[in-house]
């Protein structure tokens, strides 16, 4: 059992020059066989492993990661957490996720710095006003606390906003007061520490290069660190889901594109809410370090480069300068891209696959970070029981065949 992190632990370590801190998670070599293997040690993969152990008692689990832990989209997003979705299945899983975030620091004994600072999605066209009012009503029925707010209230919550922009004035907003942000790396690290503590093996620098099956059922994986057998395999690799599915011999309704984000130089506290402007396509919040964290657009073409096209930065920043004129002189410090997995209806897939014992959790597209705890919870239930629970039931891959879409592409606009 790892030592607990607490104020007493800090005081104790301070008194002895911080020499007593131990590694947060182990770095084991792979065993020949596991009950379950999760491919992908990002937030979703680690959360899946954590809830497999915590909720279902399955602890002989390995999490394989080709790079480093949390080094994919988990470390590349804009850390926004919200659950103001239109469709019932989405609202259910994202709200489960958001509510798990509320107590995740205590649950994991790891400070993930969840900050429910409030999220406002700006309405800047008449269509958006109607759309967000509809979402607010839907959320009321779903038990998700959101509200429609008028421009004056938007200005109160975010004084640096320009309500009377030249192209798109702010006409109101959909406000979720208990939405916010969290420290993205800490979410991965916290789950990793808890998984390691349960005896699970997190194996980094271990790329899966093949999936072995026998009589339509998975038997193990081939990796850069040798062959590893397993009874169940969970593929939780976001933008690389198609590549893994290809190894297992099936295809997914997924296309991978680059989504980019950027941060400015740090400035003094200027905004304490998250603002999303979907019509002009930009979203912004301020990190604890003072950087303005800005999310931008996705490339329209298939792409595995983790960069993104330059003109999207220009479009995003142009839109945000109109909305927040005070940022016009800010220098941008860093820009990066992540490979996101887009489905046809912009909703995720948590599902069984044509191969027995293989389960996929993918398709979170441009909005996966907020879903990490709920996604892991639902995926763990699916992997443990072999059948989806209520949270995952609607997110099967079969929905594309029967036409039962969870169409958030219309409801959520672009940023999502």
């Amino acid at each position, binding site marked *: 059992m790892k030592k607990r992190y607490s104020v007493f632990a800090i005081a104790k370590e301070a008194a002895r020059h911080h020499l007593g801190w131990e590694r947060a998670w182990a770095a084991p070599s792979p065993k020949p066989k596991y009950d379950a293997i999760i491919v992908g040690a990002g937030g979703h993969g680690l959360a899946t492993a954590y809830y497999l152990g915590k909720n279902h008692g399955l602890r002989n689990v390995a999490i394989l990661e080709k790079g480093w832990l949390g080094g994919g989209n988990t470390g590349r997003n804009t850390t926004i957490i919200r659950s103001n979705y239109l469709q019932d299945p989405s609202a259910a899983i994202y709200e489960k996720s958001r509510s798990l975030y509320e107590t995740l620091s205590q649950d994991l004994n790891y400070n993930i710095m969840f900050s429910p600072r409030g999220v406002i999605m700006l309405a800047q066209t008449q269509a958006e006003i109607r759309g967000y009012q509809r979402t607010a009503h839907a959320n009321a029925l779903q038990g998700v606390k959101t509200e429609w707010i008028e421009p004056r209230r938007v200005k109160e919550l975010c004084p640096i906003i320009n309500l009377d922009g030249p192209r798109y004035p702010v006409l109101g907003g959909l406000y979720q007061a208990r939405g916010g942000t969290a420290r993205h790396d800490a979410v991965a690290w916290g789950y990793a520490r808890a998984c390691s503590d349960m005896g699970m093996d997190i194996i980094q620098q271990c790329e899966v290069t093949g999936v072995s099956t026998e009589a339509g059922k998975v038997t193990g994986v081939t990796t850069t660190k040798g062959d590893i057998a397993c009874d169940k395999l969970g593929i939780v690799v976001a933008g690389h889901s198609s590549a893994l599915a290809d190894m297992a011999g099936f295809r997914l309704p997924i*296309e991978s594109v680059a989504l980019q984000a950027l941060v400015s130089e740090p400035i003094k506290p200027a905004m304490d809410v998250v603002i999303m402007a979907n019509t002009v396509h930009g979203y912004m919040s301020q990190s604890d370090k003072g950087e303005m964290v800005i999310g931008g657009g996705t*490339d329209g073409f298939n792409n595995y480069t983790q960069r993104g096209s330059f*003109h999207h930065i220009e479009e995003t920043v142009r839109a945000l300068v109109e909305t927040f004129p005070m940022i016009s002189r800010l220098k941008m410090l860093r820009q990066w891209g992540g490979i996101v997995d887009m489905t046809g209806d912009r909703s995720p897939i948590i599902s069984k696959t044509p191969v027995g014992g293989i389960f996929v959790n993918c398709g979170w597209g441009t909005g996966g970070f907020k879903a990490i705890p709920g996604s892991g919870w639902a995926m763990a239930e699916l992997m443990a029981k072999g059948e989806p629970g209520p949270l995952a039931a609607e997110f099967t891959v079969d929905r594309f065949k029967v036409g039962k879409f969870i169409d958030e592409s219309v409801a959520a606009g672009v940023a999502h």
Partner: protein
Amino acid sequence: MLTLTCPYCGTHADETELAPGGEAHLKRFGPGSSDEDFEDYLFRRANPKGVHFERWRHAYGCGKWFLAARCTTTLEVYGTYPAQTTEPPEHILETIAAKRPGWSWEADT
């Protein structure tokens, strides 16, 4: 920034001048086809990490659809060609094979 040559006007157009249109050479299925085929046609995609054949439209130019062969990991463009074909032309396949030994075109079934 991605630059493609429009095979109709010969212009070297950067991506702001073009509109992407997804995977090329999909076999169309419509009324009368099986649910599986229709689903595959609408949603299932190769999404390869490597050579990808795709549709583009020269939106702010001649307005015509054309096809391109491109690597999704390096963004290297192997060539562009007119859209009136059901499979990549020989010279494109040769260009790709020369740069990627062992690679071969598989028609999507």
